[in-house]
């Protein structure tokens, strides 16, 4: 058995960045090749790649932020979605045009500049992080879990509440929109960004050139989507850099020490509560930023976008990649987005392009009955029509499988040591010292 390194050995010794690069390559190749084989139109292809990149980026960001909480500090936060919602709701209320300027809008805003709204979203999410962390950090991990998920539901109920659908803030009529949510009646992200950078003209020229070169009609939506996704990838890089910095700083070492053994960290004179609070706040601020970047692009927000399900998506991404590793978080976000989140939908699109959507039965009974006559057609169409539900079943099964077979995730076993120096790299002493292995 020895001698030939097995596949797993090879995996264990490959540098993280190579694994990420290879996995990303495989994902994109699979999307592009399967799209071409099935004869997907070019416009749809580019759009699919844009969407894929978008979700890879947002889940990588969420996973990184969560890694700060769980991977570094050991805080079991399952209220992620609350902080996303707080971030983007803050932004919406601040940047939406006042009713005086856009009387057609149902709910007005304060009409502040967009960067101000974004920054305020992050700040308010951070402040809420502080408020939640104040009492919650005294609790056991499972109690913290229940408190944070209850907090996320409290926030969702609050956003849904009709009595604060509209209110007056600083003399301007605004509100949270209740069950009908809020619409961003401001320019879409790319429109705003290109205008703000004074590159609107050249950008539109580029879009036109892109469309005529590739022969795509109405290219703007597609190109906007792709460009925004690429910007988000840059934000992922910034997140990664920030978290690597935090992880390697003395601050990050204390966080890891807390994760390993809080009592020891406290015995060494560290104010562990304060460190945990800071870690919680930074993570919540980042989650608020993800909420802003994700939902601003959607053009509208609704309280029911922020169900606990989304929190668990972020968790699955983190667990796939491996808690404790930033590279793993990015990898987990990418794999989750590509295979579990976008994959089934993309596969469905491909199949319906290839064979048509058929006449799917209305109910499960209508799908199962023809199986008796060895006719799998209706069942297949039913599966296709209800892929959104099966997809979540599949996520659940993957999560169970991971907890059974690889609870440390793909790269989690490489979680960095709390020590600043590499403890495994001991110099071999020549005269009679122990020789490693």
């Amino acid at each position, binding site marked *: 058995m020895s001698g030939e390194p097995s596949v797993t050995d090879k995996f264990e010794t490959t540098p993280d960045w190579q694994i990420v690069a290879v996995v990303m390559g495989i994902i994109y190749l699979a999307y592009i090749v399967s799209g071409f084989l099935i004869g997907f139109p070019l416009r749809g292809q580019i759009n699919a790649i844009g969407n894929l990149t978008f979700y890879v980026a947002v889940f990588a960001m969420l996973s990184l932020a969560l890694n700060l909480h769980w991977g570094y500090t050991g805080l079991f936060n399952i209220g992620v979605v609350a902080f996303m919602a707080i971030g983007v709701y803050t932004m919406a209320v601040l940047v939406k045009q006042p009713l005086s300027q856009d009387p057609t809008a149902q709910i007005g805003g304060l009409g502040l500049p967009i960067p101000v709204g974004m920054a305020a979203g992050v700040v308010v999410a951070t402040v809420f992080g502080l408020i939640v962390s104040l009492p919650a950090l005294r609790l056991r991990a499972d109690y913290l879990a*229940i408190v944070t998920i209850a907090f996320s*539901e409290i926030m969702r109920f609050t956003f849904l509440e009709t009595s604060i659908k509209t209110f007056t803030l600083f003399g301007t009529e605004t509100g949270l929109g209740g069950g009908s949510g809020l619409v961003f009646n401001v320019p879409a992200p790319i429109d705003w960004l290109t205008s703000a950078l004074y590159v609107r003209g050249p950008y539109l020229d580029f879009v036109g050139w892109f469309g005529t070169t590739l022969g795509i009609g109405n290219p703007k939506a597609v190109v906007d989507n792709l460009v925004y996704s690429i910007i988000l990838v840059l934000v992922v890089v910034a997140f990664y850099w920030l978290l690597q910095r935090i992880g390697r700083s003395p601050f990050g070492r204390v966080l890891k020490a807390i994760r390993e053994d809080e009592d020891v960290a406290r015995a060494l004179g560290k104010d562990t509560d304060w460190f945990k609070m800071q870690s919680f706040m930074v993570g919540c601020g980042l989650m608020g930023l993800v909420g802003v970047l994700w939902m601003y692009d959607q053009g509208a927000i609704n309280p029911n976008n922020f169900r606990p399900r989304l929190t668990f998506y972020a968790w699955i991404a983190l667990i796939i990649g491996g808690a404790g590793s930033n590279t793993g978080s990015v990898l987990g976000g990418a794999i989750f987005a590509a295979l579990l989140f976008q994959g089934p939908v993309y596969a469905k699109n491909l199949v319906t392009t290839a064979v048509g959507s058929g006449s799917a039965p209305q109910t499960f009974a209508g799908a199962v009955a023809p199986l008796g006559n060895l006719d799998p057609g209706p069942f297949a169409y039913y599966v296709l029509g209800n892929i959104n539900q099966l997809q979540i*079943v599949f996520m659940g099964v993957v999560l169970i499988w991971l907890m059974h077979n690889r609870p440390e995730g793909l790269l989690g076993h490489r979680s960095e040591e709390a020590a600043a120096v590499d403890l495994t790299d001991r110099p071999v002493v020549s005269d009679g010292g122990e020789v490693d292995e």
Partner: protein
Amino acid sequence: MGVRDTVNRGRIVAIERPDVFLVWVLGAALVVDLLWGLATGGIAFSTLASNVWDGIMRGLVIGLAGIGLSMTYSILNFANFAHGDYITAGAFAGWSVTYLITGFGEYDLGALVLVGPKSNVTGTIIGIGVVSTPLAVLAGLLVAGAATIALALLVDRYVYRPLRDEGGITLLITSIGVAFALRYLIAFVFDSSTRTTAGTTGNPAVRLNFVDGTVRVSSHDVTLVVVSVGLMLGVHYLLQRTKLGKAMRAMADNEDLARVTGIPTERVVRSTWIIGGGLTGFAGFMLVLWKETIRFNDGWLLLLLIFAAVIMGGIGSIYGAIAGGLIIGIVASTSVIWVPSGLTEATAFLVMILVLLFRPEGIFSGRSTA
């Protein structure tokens, strides 16, 4: 001297724990406000009584389902996030049978088995109710319990047992996976629509006079009270008078010690799932009978309230779970007096968070058995 002691103790609390003091002051203010409202006629006695009755109904379901959660939480040491979906699974299994028995021969078989996924077959149309079709309801109730037991044992065998030695957080994350898979499998098979399961025809109600108005009590309310109180007494007897109950308490206390003493821990775990699962299935069926609608995420939406009840009552205590359920149910239902109706559940969660912060061991701690 009693009064002086209390006052002194109050003063000490006020100085040493201002946060606890604040919560007490707030609670007292609400009680005063309630009494004032009743005295001046701002709040009708009958409205309050209706809210409390509604809260008791909700609390009984929560308490019944909470017993199972509390038992597994203390014996297996993890918060089972799939518990809510056990409730839904039990409800669908039971109601499938109730529909089948009531409408067999008259309606499409597939629609009956799937609990009327499209609105052409509803409980109102086929006339389900505890008075009109008592046998179908009873059969459904029993199947709901049996199916949930089978499900709980199956999931335990293949999902939780291999992880028995892992920590509570590993199991908690795994249970989230189970919850996802179960809930959306139910949605895939039974459709994700909301359906009406029972109408007023099979469910006569009386309006009882109460001070300044009436309180509506339906036959399903009464059924819920009878079934849940009966089951709670049964569990009480089982855990107090049998060796199994003693073994469970021993295991919850210290698993290693229990094993050393010769208690067959795996068998106790199985019994725990059987008792807990059965009660959970019954709770699911009764929840649907009482609220007269069924949907694939009913149990999940109830789960946080059940956690609230279990934590409030002290994890591991079945009496705590029942009492906690009643408190949470009544809090959620009576809070409409002060908060908008959309925030009643949020209020219950807030109360749970306060309990976790100020009394994480539960309000009945130290008095728990089994």
